[in-house]
């Protein structure tokens, strides 16, 4: 039996018909065709599906869709501003080479987004800890960490030089 639930995605209200056992990722990808959030495992182990629910990062592949009723979901597609400008974290991943195959990137950026919201000036350890649930098989994380450091510096108006040294 399908149920109808309502929630908001990147600021737009949506109503979707779902089966009770579906997870949020399935609805985002298969129903809403927001394919930015990726599926790397479907079991809560890789972070590729990370999105924000009411501002908190979740593994959407194991997040029951019924629980999203009435909440706000933010996906990678919602990070650009209205004029189409990249969010500073996206920009930083682009400039500081945090992207290789890119399959982990949307999840990685969402985790970084949640981190910087809570902690605008994180240490390297705090960054590594915050993205420890986001697996990347390509980069070795070095340039991902640098990207997040750079984004933090840009977002808080600190100089780039300092960001590079942290």
């Amino acid at each position: 039996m399908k149920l109808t639930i309502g929630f908001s995605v990147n600021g737009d209200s949506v109503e979707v018909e779902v089966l009770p056992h579906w997870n949020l990722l399935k609805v985002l990808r298969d129903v809403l065709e927001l394919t930015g959030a990726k599926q790397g495992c479907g079991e809560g182990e890789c972070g590729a599906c990370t999105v924000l629910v009411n501002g908190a990062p979740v593994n959407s592949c194991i997040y029951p869709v019924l629980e999203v009723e009435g909440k706000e979901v933010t996906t990678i597609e919602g990070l650009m501003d209205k004029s189409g400008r990249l969010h500073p974290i996206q920009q930083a991943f682009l400039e500081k080479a945090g992207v290789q195959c890119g399959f982990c990137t949307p999840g990685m950026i969402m985790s970084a987004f949640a981190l910087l919201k809570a902690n605008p000036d994180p240490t390297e350890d705090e960054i590594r800890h915050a993205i420890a649930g986001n697996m990347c098989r390509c980069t070795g994380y070095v340039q991902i960490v640098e990207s997040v450091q750079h984004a933090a510096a840009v977002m808080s108006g600190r100089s780039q030089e300092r960001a590079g040294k942290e």
Partner: protein
Amino acid sequence: MKNKDKPPELQPFFDKNIAGDVVPSIGISMPRIDAYAKVTGRERYAADYYGFDMIWAGVKRAGIPHARLKSVNTQAAENLPGVIAVLTHKNISGSNRQGVIRKDQPVLVDDKVRHCGDAVALVLAEDKETLAKAIKLTSADFEPLPGVFTTETALEENAPLVHEDHPGGNVLLKASLEIGSVQSAKEHCDVLVEACFETPLVEHAYLETEAGWAQLKEDGKLEIVASTQTPFRDRMEVADALGLEPERIRMIAPYAGGAFGGKDGVTVQSLLGLAALHANGRPVKMWWSREESFIAGTKRHAARMYYRLGAKADGSLHSLDTRLYFDTGPYDHLGGVVITLALEHSGGPYRIPNVSFKGWAVYTNNPIGGAFRGFGVAQVTAAMEQMMDMLAEKLAMDPLKLRLKNAVRKGDKNCVGVTLTHSTGLVECLEAVARHPLWTERAAWKSKAGPFKRRGAGIVALMHASGYGPVVPDVANAKVELTAEGKIKVYCGVVDMGQGNAATNLQIAGSILCQNVDRIELILPDTDRTLPSGSASASRCTYTFGNALIGACETLKLRILQRAADLLMVDDCDETALIPGAVRHLPTGREIPLHRLATFMNESERTATQRFRAPTAKEIPPVGNEIRLHGFPHTLFSYGAHLVRVEVNELTGVVDVKRYLSVSDCGKIINPHVYEQQIQGAIAQGIGYALSEEVQVNEGKVLTADLATFIIPAASDVPEIESQPVEIYEPSGPYGLKGVGEIATNGPLPAIANAVADACGVRIFRSPLTPSRVLRALRERLSEGGVH
């Protein structure tokens, strides 16, 4: 948001780069062109197509390692509403066999199951849930057969045969090479060290599991979009397996979400092709689950390697004897080529006058061994570089000096008898490590280990061949076009699986043709549009395709300048230059926009192509033709030296990698950021290989089929990595470049093993160096009285 009205688009998504007004140059870090779509979530990977009328296909896996197939029961699944078809080998009219060298792998099992991941039936359903139910409802009757699960048992005389029709029995390929005489040389050695090393079966664990979709078009063309490294070869494989003319098949390879060798060859392609033939023209999608990827996908070969290394008292290597046993699982895949490359690298980058190398790729009923970044070299480097440290210890010699003493230099013959005629920067790499404080100040650092901690430093020397070797032509065909709109189109022949070669192609074309980024468009590999250029593998992509691309761009440039000179009525095109969007006559400043120029040229005049074939070794090595056919020997090598510092916790056995230094001779660098990505990413994978990654298999069944039990490094597990290039110009490479894709992945396992031995005084011959193995070794050492 859902678009039900139009069929999914076949073309990969492109968007404008934000730094579109930049004219690319060689040697600078410019943002990758693919990054924009990736950071915005807009990139459409093979797994990202949904929409119009799409149906799902999935596979019933055998779940039994060795059995005769008696029948497949499809009825129950077929009766389920929403099931479109349940297909078996009977629905295949082609050879039903796939494989790069030996075609021994069925698309759908017909006679025999040879590993748990074999595909028994292919199910098509309206949605994923029905698909899952239907796969469960499909069953098969098997007559179980005794299996072979280790290379030892597979080589026993009366071992069950994985392929009854293979003349070599369970030996897929035996490779051997003899130079000088190891037998008599042994008598002239002052020291001999002997050891056996075991390395595990390893999963690629790319974030994007095997995926794709396919559609049978109205004109009869079968279009397959897949996450693959090898679209052109896939096309031939699918055609043969399904009994279609290759021209009927179009393979398209979007950006892959990681591949590392695991998509070098057919994964979903033939299955999708078969599904599309039975889908009434509807698009069919297949996306393996993580568990399925573990069970059915290829892996890095597990290996057992026997080494005996002899040297003179002064440290000069004199003889090396190796026997390599690689478990290739039930199918060739690329197992023969892997063992051959392993054999070629088994003596490392050293001069050794007497060698005897033997290698066996052995069929078993375990998961399929195949291509994985490192391609056999990761295994033998783990062995050889530990042998070097063991030898150094026996000689009471500094391990770095021992390596320097024996390191190959340009003009030397390497230990398989090939004269090194290309740039050979190993000595420079080792010297850079020798000078580095992480090495020179290691004693002080080690002495500061806290209570219950031990610290150690380890080094390794590396080499890695690039390209296919002498027989299979290592060829790329580049094509560039000045479009009617005055833009540049680059037709990429080699897949970008994440390593960034597409962006590098843009950098090359933009720099030669002096066009800014947003005037250049990339066409990703597509058998209907781009030219065949081989696989994205073997550290060859930018070397081989880059050379071809430079040629094509130079041709097009000259043609554009000449045409412009004609139109500007000047004699000499030397007086003209390309500038963004136009050609300028330098003496007068007159300009002709490219879009105008293009109107005077027809399509073939606006298009330039160039073929490049990578150089091959000209020596005739003392090996059989079969081994040459499998790619022996190479002529072009990258080199490197790594250093690692580790801290071992005596109470837990945990090895903490504190610092990592990599010095690499991969020639000149086109884009430092992308270069770093290759080195750092490879090292992280190597650290996983060293410390935690092991696909555990029991009687052919994978026990670690998820990312909770197969542990790849997380951000918190990877140390600070310093990487230094030794930029020696390689004259045959594009802008002096050599391959960088694989070499660094070979270093961490032996470097860490050497560092652990340095820290603890024990060597662990079986990797990964898990806490329990380290603890056991520490305990054994204690009970032996602490002497080693």
